[in-house]
């Protein structure tokens, strides 16, 4: 079981409040991603759950048990760090076996568990190597192996892929998702990469300045952002915003349109603009257009569109997909 509940958890470092007070419930087996910009408190929140940081106030419950004052190892959680945090003086085998040895498990059982974890993670041929002799991806798999063998009630991942190159990141993302499908254990995953959040999560928690801005499924956040922050943070390229006359026409203070919800025309449209940069990706074309009265607008057009820098183009937003926000930045529905 891996139900985790945070009750009014706050964290301050001296006079600086990092997390003003958070309530959150994570259900058993869920893949929850904490996402937000750098310094939003997502890693701190994860470390509070892990027990590596003390909460200034509030309570943390795991499966109904209050663990607020428990040592990290007593919480039954396993953590995978950004820097892998492998023990450099131990072989892969000893790294994976370390938590079991600390739990004083007998040697036969340790060997069996290590062999099984190595098989699942394709590390069988590397068991006698040291971390320094492995590639980044292999090291991260060892770190995951060390977490798996403990059979924790939940896995905590602290930006585990940010040290890897783009291609490997994609592969590891799939491997972690597959692992979740196999183990069906609760996973809490911290990232600043919203693509990782969108592709892996059952539930995303968007954090900003220590506050939860919105909790929901990836598509919930994409289609129904609660406020301007979530609207701007989820989705790539980010949503375009317009205020003033354009917005008041829709009865809103600000309107938002995603780049993929704009239609391009060379003849006519709602907005007129001049192309400042055209990025041709083959499958898509990203156009950065200076629209009269709005400013810079990004449009994502399917396929390769023969538009160049300096061309005058017309954009028409998909009326049904315009997001409206009031003066406080909250969504109007």
């Amino acid at each position, binding site marked *: 079981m891996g139900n985790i509940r945070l009750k009014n958890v706050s964290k301050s470092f001296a006079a600086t409040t990092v997390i003003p007070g958070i309530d959150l419930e994570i259900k058993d087996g869920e893949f929850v991603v904490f996402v937000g910009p750098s310094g939003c408190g997502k890693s701190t929140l994860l470390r509070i759950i892990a027990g590596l940081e003390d909460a200034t106030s509030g309570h943390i419950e795991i499966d109904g048990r209050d663990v607020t004052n428990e040592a990290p190892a007593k919480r039954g959680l396993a953590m995978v*760090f950004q820097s892998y945090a*492998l*023990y450099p003086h131990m072989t892969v085998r000893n790294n994976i076996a370390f938590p079991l040895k600390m739990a004083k498990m007998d040697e036969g059982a340790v060997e069996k568990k290590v062999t099984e974890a190595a098989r699942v993670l394709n590390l069988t041929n590397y068991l006698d190597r040291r971390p320094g002799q492995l590639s980044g991806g292999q090291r991260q798999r060892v770190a995951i192996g060390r977490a798996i063998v403990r059979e924790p009630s939940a896995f905590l991942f602290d930006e585990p892929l940010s040290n890897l190159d783009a291609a490997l990141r994609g592969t590891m993302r799939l491997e972690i998702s597959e692992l979740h499908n196999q183990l069906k254990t609760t996973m809490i995953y911290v990232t600043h990469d919203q693509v990782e959040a969108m592709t892996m999560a059952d539930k995303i928690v968007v954090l900003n300045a220590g506050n939860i801005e919105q909790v929901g499924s990836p598509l919930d956040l994409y289609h129904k952002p609660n406020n301007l922050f979530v609207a701007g943070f989820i989705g790539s390229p980010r949503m375009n915003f317009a205020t003033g006359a354009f917005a008041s026409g829709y009865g809103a203070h600000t309107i938002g349109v995603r780049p993929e919800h704009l239609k391009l025309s060379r003849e006519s449209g709602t907005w007129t603009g001049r192309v400042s940069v055209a990025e041709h990706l083959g499958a898509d074309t990203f156009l950065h257009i200076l629209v009269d009265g709005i400013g810079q607008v990004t449009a994502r057009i399917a396929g390769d569109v023969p538009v160049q820098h300096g061309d005058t183009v017309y954009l028409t937003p998909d009326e049904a997909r315009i997001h409206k926000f009031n003066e406080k930045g909250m969504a109007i529905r």
Partner: protein
Amino acid sequence: MARAVSTRRTVFFTVLAWIVALVIFFPILYTIITSFKSETEAIQGFNLIPSGTVESYAAVQAQSNYFKFFMNSVIISVGSTLLALLISVPAAWAMAFSPTPRTKDVLMWMLSTKMMPAAAVMVPIYLLFRDFGLLDSRFGLTIMLTMINLPIVVWMLYTYFREIPGEILEAARMDGASLWGEIAYVLTPMAVPGIASTMLLNIILAWNEAFWTIRLTTTNAAPLTAFIASFSSPQGLFWAKLSAASTLAIAPILIMGWFSQKQLVRGLTFGAVK
């Protein structure tokens, strides 16, 4: 062109390094050479080729028991190093992994004690040693040398420990290691090179310490520094004998330093370059 300049620079700096090294080493070399001369040869002026006699060594050994001084040096330098490590490992661990806003100040304060002239505290320390019955005792000297070198040992270990990523210790904590498990299975094995070079340097510093070892001992606990000193005043004019005594005193540490130079260099430059 660039390659030619860089080759010329390399040659220049290599020659310069050799010259500097020779200048630094020359007094030691000349002491060794002089120790193999007769007294007559020794006072005849500058001469790099000795006759090879070992009469000075025989005379020195006949006059005082070298082995006793040597053992005192070993006991107080190794003893003070072990004691310093015992105190410094937990201290440096706390400062490196659990720093407070005042940690830097504490470190600076510790180091500042090294800036104080030893002569300034000579009288109070002498009186304390006298009152506690520590004068001319190996135990007293071991405590004294531990105190003298403690700031450097704490600083060196602190620098080493700081290089160990905190996340590794946190991982150990998540994996169920207790505080001592963390220190024994993770921190210490990772810091072995650092602890070893700190140990070597401290042994050398303790071995060479002359101010207190000469002033706080007479016969029983006198180490090799006192052994040389005992030759310098009455035998001041007998240079060959004085050189033989000096060579005997520095030989053990010189040999140890030669074999452990790799660790020592690493220890002294650690943190300066990655």
